[in-house]
């Protein structure tokens, strides 16, 4: 499956920000990255040499084993740190998803705090629709097959998606797309 970066970036301050911007700009312009989960090109070789610049600002964290994932049974983990609102879920949906990894590209991970006003969407995964929600506060729902886009509701953006990599049977979280509720910067808690 996908190649991935082996090293975390050690940039700090302004340099770190530049890293982030590079990652964004790359994804914005790119149609050729099989390795990042955000770009859903079905086939083709990844441009692995660009990986470090893209995801290296985030920690690379082991979050599970593919062989232990069961369809539609979400697993919780924390990312990118152990701070507030870091709770995320990893779920094998059984259908191909935007940003999915695994043979079926059906393994995705998302932050679990509603990006409207911070409602906790604990245990709200709807296996029949691959939707997370409704948020108990104001009923927002998110489509996990489509990068966490808002299905119905009031959120100001998609649910932040955790970028995944697969190394054999090991599942790693390597980055994040979208600002986590409550934070002004994903890497500051």
């Amino acid at each position, binding site marked *: 499956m996908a190649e991935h970066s082996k090293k975390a970036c050690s940039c700090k301050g302004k340099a770190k*920000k530049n890293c*982030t911007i590079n990652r*964004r700009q790359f*994804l*914005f312009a790119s149609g050729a990255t099989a390795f990042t989960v955000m770009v*859903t090109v079905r086939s083709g070789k990844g441009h692995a040499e660009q990986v470090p610049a893209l995801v290296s600002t985030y920690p690379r964290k082991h979050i599970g084993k593919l062989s232990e994932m069961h369809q539609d049974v979400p697993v919780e983990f924390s990312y990118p740190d152990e*701070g*507030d*609102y870091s709770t995320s879920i990893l779920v094998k949906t059984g259908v191909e*998803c*935007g*940003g999915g990894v695994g043979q079926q590209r059906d393994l995705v991970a998302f932050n679990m705090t509603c*990006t*409207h*006003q*911070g*409602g*906790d969407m604990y245990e709200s995964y*709807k296996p029949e*629709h*691959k*939707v997370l*929600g*409704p948020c108990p*506060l*104001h*009923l927002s*729902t998110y*489509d996990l*097959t*489509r*990068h966490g*886009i*808002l*299905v*119905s*509701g*009031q*959120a*100001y*953006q*998609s649910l*932040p998606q955790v970028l995944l990599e697969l190394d054999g049977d090991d599942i790693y979280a390597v980055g*994040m*797309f*979208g*600002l*986590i*509720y*409550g*934070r*002004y*910067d*994903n890497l*500051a*808690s």
Partner: protein
Amino acid sequence: MATPYYVPETNVPLPPKGADVISTACDYCVVACGYKVYRWPVTAKSGGPTADSNAFDEDFPVAPLGAWVAPNQHNIVLHKNKPHHVVIVPDKDAEHVNTDGDSSLRGGCIAQKCYNPQTPTRDRLKTPLMRIYGTLMPVPWDLALEVAAEVGKHVIKKHGTNAYGVKTFSYQYIENTYAISKYALRHINTANFTFHDTPSDVTSTPGFRDAGFDNFGPAYEDWMNAETLLVCGTDPYETKTILYTQWMMKGMQNGQKEIYLIPRRSAGVAYAEKMGGLHIDITPGTDLLVVNAIARVIVENGWEDSDWIQKWVNNKWESSSGFGQGTRNTPWQWRTTWGKFQTAGFEDWKKWLLAQDEFIPENAAAVAEIDVQKIYTAAEWMAKPREDGTRPKTSIMIEKGFYWSNNTGNTQAISALGIITGCGGRPGQVIGRAGGHQRGGVKGGSYPRNKSPEKLPGRRRRAMDTDRYLIAGHTRFAHVIGTTWIQAMCGSQQLADKFEELTVQNPHQIRSFDKAEIIETLKKRADSGGMVVINQDIYLQDPIGNRYADIVFPAATWGEEDFLRANGERRVRLYQKFYDAPGAAKPDWWIIANLAKRMGFDGFDWENSNEVAEEAVRFTRGSRKDFFVLKKLAHDEGKTLHQKVAEFGTSGIQCPAMLADDGKTIIETKRLHDTTRKLPETGAAGINMINKKLTHFNSQTGKCNIQKSPWNLFSDYWEWLKPAKDEGELWCTSGRINERWQSGFDDRRRPYIVQRWPENWVEIHPDDAEARGIESGDYVMIYSERVPGHKHTILGVEADDFQFSKLMENGHIELTKAAITAVAMVTPAIKKSVLYMDFLHMQQPANALEGRVVDWISGNYNYKMGVAKIKKLGPSPYKTSFRTMSFAPRDIV
């Protein structure tokens, strides 16, 4: 145009201590949540994550419901020509409206509305444009205004005032609507005048008008405090979010039962069901039957609110007093004396109701295609007294899905149901509209109804159907302000054909550099039977501006000027200027004033928007948004009216407002028709105006008129329209979707919203989809060979001359074809045999399929009534893309 790829940010700047904090309210839906703008120069240091280093006094990460800033809530704007950060967030200290600091997605991302050339807002209109050699070219204000005024004067002189048509928004701030209506009605005095949402300047809810109900009498808390709430033709969660999330949801969590009368199940309906509510999934246009069937069950069981009726419903003599005493020339006078609606009181109405077989629940349910039990359940919840004899507190909310389906009939029927269930006049027991846009209209002149050619049988004058007048070729100068006109009206494609013929296809086109020659060309256009179009807007809309306009005026909008407006509970606030309008864009009042002066009109010498407001406020006296006393207070304190209103921040003043005996304390109005309210004993002394509607109803006696609502005034149209199912026809209706506002003028420039809703879509029931081989994500063609269009302006002589079947028989209805494409969304959330689309996509306008035949009593379009066939074209790119759209159900709760 927006890139369809939304790339989310992962950080956002925070406002520093000392950032400017400016209160405003959302620009969009009627609820008008309070917002705060935090502004600081880009050269200054942004705030930090600790409470002592940011303007929110909050430590980050913030708590749920806290002062979080989503990246879409930040922008960079010019303020006094210097770049500034702005963060625009719902007011976390809000005491009214959006309590809890809540917001919808629309308002929540309003920072993206601001002009910023690095975002898709870069195509804001920045200079006046004139079409020269077929191309819209930038020109100075003077040239654009002079040409428009010279041609306008010529048209009025040669072709009469009605040849000058004004089609305008009704709501985009008091200063603008006042200036526009002063210009069009008081000075030009044209009957060829109407608003963005109707072909004729008529009341939206004739039944409410006749019964005595104000559209916006209730307070938001009433919708929460009702025990049973009947919601007709809207899901407020989708359309006026905060009314739902902050008020109705809390009501339901407190045991309120909500009943929805609507063919579609969206999230708000689904949540109500989950909370024990009821969804009556009616077939379009059958509301009247179901409402009257509910009323029938109530009166058959004797569940009506007899004490209330005794005290507050006009009897025979009261019903006739005042009625029929006037000219019978206004719609209200003739409707109430015509004999079709008026009754001699409750018993007379009841007798009529019980005599109509179509209101027997089983019969009504059969036509509406619903489970008859729902009629009985609704009646019980709304009116059945409890064992201790107390009654449920019942309220009724209506909106466009209801009153734009059978405008007169439905609003008459619901008024009667409201009256017998004791709605209106008490806390938690109210009846009103939920609302669409905000309430920013103040008229600076009155509509010259007697100049309208529209005459119904008898002495019955009605405001002009401006679409039909245009199609007949009488409009020589169309002045279009802040509306798409064409896509917003029924039979859009018929209307577009005529615009094309009268403008683009006319031989007189500007091909000159010389002002006199330009003016001469446009005069010839008008004289040759063609039409000159001038358009004021913030973006170039297609086709009204982009294709048909000869002159385009760039308008300044929300945040670019100080403006006043009221919301759906009559709360008036100042929407403050916080950044520079782009380029040479000017507020509409300024454009009108400078055009008016060139037309030779006096009274347009305003220097700023406050001066317009101070003149306009006098005309709010006696209205539901009467805030005249604030001007007095302001002047007593040496302030301007705008300054005074600004002091009330996001709370504003709930109107009508009056002053207490001390001459200083403001007395607000929580709800209209409040029979429990005690007014000051001094009465209407001094500056105070005490209108009947404060404590009574808007009728000749102050009591309600209970009126009949005959089905047969509409049933011939409904029967004709009804889909021929064996030919594959389905009902085709439309409405709002939460994520988009109006034509999407802002949303089309928000990458995230473009990603969510790249184009128009159509919900189709799985059975209907399967029969046609349609799957979610397929492109479909939605088309009709029989879109009816009323083509002649006629003088009615016989009583039924305007009845649809008569119009048809006499050759006044033209049937045309229409077709639009859309992306299919297969879902059981929409009733079988019904299609549902977004109501106003510029490229794929649902209104193209809706009949261009006005409700013949009121003059409103029944926008929600259409019929169409649908066929698969092939897969859209969204069917397999993972970035754009979602086909997951929207009713998961």
